[in-house]
């Protein structure tokens, strides 16, 4: 079974609209990472969250970690075609072991 649950599995959004992706764990997260993957490419690091209630933003992407450190969300404001791709959340499950959720495929329609 997967240790990190991501939702939704996929979503289609109209350009200019907002979207939110969720990542949930049954265990306390000591390090939560968001990555983006474009088709045929490797993963690009977006943001890392470690503290309960932490929120980080970069350009139009905001990531939050809840106070209990078991749920994170990634929010994109005014989506653009460049935001299309697969978004994966990852968490430190053990030393030297970063495990990932199943990913969320984002399609942005012009």
């Amino acid at each position: 079974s997967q240790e990190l649950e991501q939702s939704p599995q996929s979503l289609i959004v109209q350009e200019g609209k907002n979207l939110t992706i969720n990542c949930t764990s049954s265990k306390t997260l000591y390090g939560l990472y968001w990555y983006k993957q474009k088709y045929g490419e490797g993963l690009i690091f977006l943001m890392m969250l470690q503290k309960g209630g932490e929120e980080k933003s970069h350009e139009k992407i905001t990531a939050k970690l809840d106070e209990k450190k078991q749920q994170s969300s990634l929010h994109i404001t005014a989506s653009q075609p460049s935001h299309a791709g697969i978004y994966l959340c990852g968490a430190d499950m053990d030393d030297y072991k970063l495990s990932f959720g199943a990913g969320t495929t984002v399609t942005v329609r012009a």
Partner: protein
Amino acid sequence: DTAVSQTPKYLVTQMGNDKSIKCEQNLGHDTMYWYKQDSKKFLKIMFSYNNKELIINETVPNRFSPKSPDKAHLNLHINSLELGDSAVYFCASSSQGSGANVLTFGAGSRLTVL
């Protein structure tokens, strides 16, 4: 200059063959990883090495043998390839194994077993 480079990018081979994927990082990281991404895009860790020592082996069949000749290289050799081995294999590296464990990924090696 690519931070984490993998070769080859594409590999098509027959069942039963043996093949290798090479990975090199020029970031000075001390930890390297192999991940497997299946057709459903699920990314699963296979191995992690720290300073050339195997740390994590996620119940990978022993047909898969990683080798780390030095901190900057982690190669993956696969014996007796099976259809189920078809996937994209990603190499990654990080500067430490715990705490702020930001991984830098290679572009992936797509293996197709016929």
